[in-house]
């Protein structure tokens, strides 16, 4: 070979530098993670201790973020509720991914009747209002948090399927899929080794958004008595319960609201950072 003098090899990078968004996301989520694990020990007051004498106290040195209508410490309740809220969001999302991604892959890869059947089933699922679907699952049995998680997970399956299928369809046109077929790969290899790695980036972003929606939907379910049960604490439940007092005592919603916002932004940044990290084109600077 005399006709090719390749450019000198640049030194190979071994570890891509971490994207900024990933670091910020981790920084935001770290205190929440601590609270989720150790909330009940860190809380200055028991989360369900009522104190009729100090109802609706504004934030002050005694109660940092004030108290609610039963005189419970808002900060303690937020701390203790971290775990259940995050578990709700993350577990429900994981469930929807677990069910949705394979269905979407198959629908996109197979097409035809199988694909149609999957997509129409998803349409039926989507046509139910999420709350109704939640109620459907929970109404027949005793409410419990894991059931709420399952209900929310199911609600979000169609979105995951649609996204996965759309990307799969696009990737199926790519020539590297043709190349895989030409060397005699089976469908499973093509789906899970050629297509799936290319689906993760958009899916990671989607999933980080889903976590947020799942927490909020969990709150709605709690509000109608289907999710977390009073007096247990849950961010969504706390915000819902604060609504009647929003004019007298806006601080009741402030602390859980702030925690929820931190989680939302943190998870979003984490998702975006993961997308960048997973992309081989990433060279670090963002």
């Amino acid at each position, binding site marked *: *070979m*005399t*006709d*090719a*003098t*390749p*450019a000198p*090899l640049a030194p*190979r990078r071994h570890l891509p530098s971490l994207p900024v968004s990933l670091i910020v996301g981790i920084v935001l989520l770290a205190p929440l993670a601590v609270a989720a694990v150790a909330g009940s020990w860190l809380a200055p007051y028991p989360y369900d201790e009522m104190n009729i004498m100090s109802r609706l106290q504004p934030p002050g040195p005694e109660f940092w973020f004030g108290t609610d209508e039963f005189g419970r410490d808002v900060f303690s309740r937020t701390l203790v509720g971290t775990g259940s809220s995050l578990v709700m969001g993350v577990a429900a999302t994981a469930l929807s991914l677990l069910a949705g991604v394979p269905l979407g892959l198959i629908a996109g890869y197979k097409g035809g009747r199988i694909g149609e059947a999957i997509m129409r089933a998803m349409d039926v699922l989507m046509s139910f209002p999420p709350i109704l679907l939640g109620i459907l699952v929970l109404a027949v049995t005793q409410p419990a948090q894991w059931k709420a998680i399952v209900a929310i997970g199911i609600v979000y399956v169609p979105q995951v399927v649609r996204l996965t299928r759309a990307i799969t369809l696009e990737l199926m046109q*790519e*020539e*590297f899929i*043709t*190349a*895989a*077929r*030409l*060397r*005699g*790969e089976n469908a499973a290899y093509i789906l899970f080794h*050629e297509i799936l*790695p*290319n689906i993760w980036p958009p899916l990671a972003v989607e999933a980080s958004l889903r976590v947020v929606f799942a927490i909020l939907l969990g709150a709605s379910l709690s509000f109608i008595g289907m999710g977390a049960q009073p007096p247990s604490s849950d961010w969504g439940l706390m915000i819902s319960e604060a609504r009647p007092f929003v004019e007298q005592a806006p601080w009741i919603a402030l602390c859980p609201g702030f925690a929820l916002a931190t989680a939302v932004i943190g998870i979003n940044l984490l998702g975006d950072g993961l997308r960048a990290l997973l992309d*081989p*084109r990433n*060279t670090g*600077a*963002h």
Partner: protein
Amino acid sequence: MMTAPQARPAVAPVTVTAPAPEPAPLLDVRGLTISYGNARGTLRAASDVGFAIRPGEVMGLVGESGSGKSTIAMAILDLLGGGGRVDSGEILFDGVDLRRLPAAERRALRGDRIAAVFQDPFTSLNPALTVGRQIAEPLIQHKSLSPRQAAARVLDLLAEVGIRDPRRVTAAYPHELSGGMQQRALIATALGCEPKLLILDEPTTALDVTVEARIIDLLAKLCDSHGLSALFVSHNLGIVNRICQTVTVLYGGLVVETGPTGRVLSRPAHPYSKGLVAALPRITAGRRHRLPSIPGTVAKLSGPPAACVFAPRCPFAEETCRSQPQAMLTDAAGDGVRCWKADALAGTPWPDEESAARKPAPQAPAQPTAPLVEVDHLRKVYGANRSILPWLRRAGTVAVEDVSFTVGRGEVVGVVGESGSGKSTIGRALLALTEPSAGTVLFDGTDLTRQVKQGDQDLRRRAQLVFQNSAASLNPRKTVGDAMDRPLVLAGRADAEERRKTVAGLLTRVGLPSAYADRYPHELSGGERQRVNIARALATDPDFVVCDEAVSALDVSVQANILNLLAELRDEMGLSYLFITHDIAVVSHIADRVLVVYGGTICEEGPTGRVLRPPYHPYTEALLSAVPRLAEDGQEAPRILLEDAAPTPGGQGCAFAARCPRKLGAICDEQAPPVHRADDGHRIACHIPLATLAERAAVFPELVGDAAH
């Protein structure tokens, strides 16, 4: 975006200002430096670029992709995107520096006095608006015409760009028009406001060769009749030769040579220009010619050059070249060249690798045993529905109609045709990627499609494909090594260490360092990726490789590289190729036999040397006459310009009848053409008698004497 107007650099050391005896230049670019910057660093797309276009002059701006030619065109139009920034320099249009004008005035100039036509007509027109409305838009915007006046003007414009039924075209949506018609409509849009300067950015690259020939003719005629000046950005020297009076050669964002087209292309002074001219694929009767190529990849600058930019790829480079930046040297006639050795090298051609690397070519098997691939009456219809319910039945679109041919062992068969000719479908059918609607494809005596359907993939691995798009054919999330490892795993090679060695060996085989196994596709250049594609195809140890436009997306210099590699592999490994391309010049370099396909049928088939000489099928003749040539290649034969009509496959008559310049009459539309056969396997499907076809003058007279082939 443009920065605030800056003081011009006190001295513009290498600005090439032609002496311009009479008229002042219409466009005068001086010291233009453009950079693209992001967090990862700065890339200089243009460094101190200067050139001038006089009124009525068409200037070619040529170079490989990445040389900065489109960036300069976009900077003139003030349409730099993607973080591009003009750092310094002047763009004088009619004596006014465009960079000093306020944004609103610049915008008013654009589309009015400076108009542009871009590469891809298919994306340049808005699919949701009628063509007429899109042409009328600038007339209403810039010339304040009423919609009614504009509509009348649109009809005139369309007639002027050679559209025969302007009324139909104004009311049509873009998808209803062929690529050639769309590009004509875009040219009409550009002409609408009677501009003084046209920016043509690869206006014919996306078109078929026969359509390209007509569009170039049209542009040359229009520039002449309107006294237009034009900046013609192109990578195709043959096209530049046809339309441009002067040419500016760019490399790594620097002007390396400038001068009259005839001189630059016949006696290039800069080594880079020499290389570009030498690498242009020309029609040759003999296969096995190694094409001259330019090694390496295009230079990317991050700041002012510290040495000659071309030195790493230059066969004439000396120590001085690697240590000192080169200045532009201007001669008495105003021609410039950025090489201190230009005078010394005046008579030295680009080195011909053939003399050094030529090996005694093994003779093609004279009487092949059984052919490797046999295609018998292949027919492929897309979208057909043979339902028992009459209202669901659909005839579908015929892509391939009754095609039969064979590929012998160790043989290279070229398939030449335009877009929509069915050539890719033929390739896909041969690889069992698409199921034939009728007919059979036998691979080594076995029906491959049936085998694959039954789940037997072993035979299929012996037939591989090299794609056109080198980027899309590699999974962006897999390293080169992973992509090549997989076929070995499938072949049952269990030892990972041994597989790694094989991958390294294959990479070396295609001329890449074995360390490339750890790289991701986006880290490679287009030519390197295409080498990886070839290596991956070879990993299954195939007998047969379909190359589907495998070199079409590459720069001429790289194209030559890949063609040489494919020819070498064929010689050493005894591979058979089906080489699918639109470029008959490329095919003449590599193919033993050529099939010319049109509208899903074979018009002409035969040994390469025979197809390139009369008698020709009228379509082959048109294809050959569209091959661009440089002055030194001899007199250009009169070009055969084809009508701009879609092929009519699957009909009763000859598929080419609608566009045929030598159509006999109704018989061509109504009856399938008879096939004239010769003993050496040459066949032509045409109603015109063979004797009449043979009377035509050769498009390439120099090939006729080469009867020995």
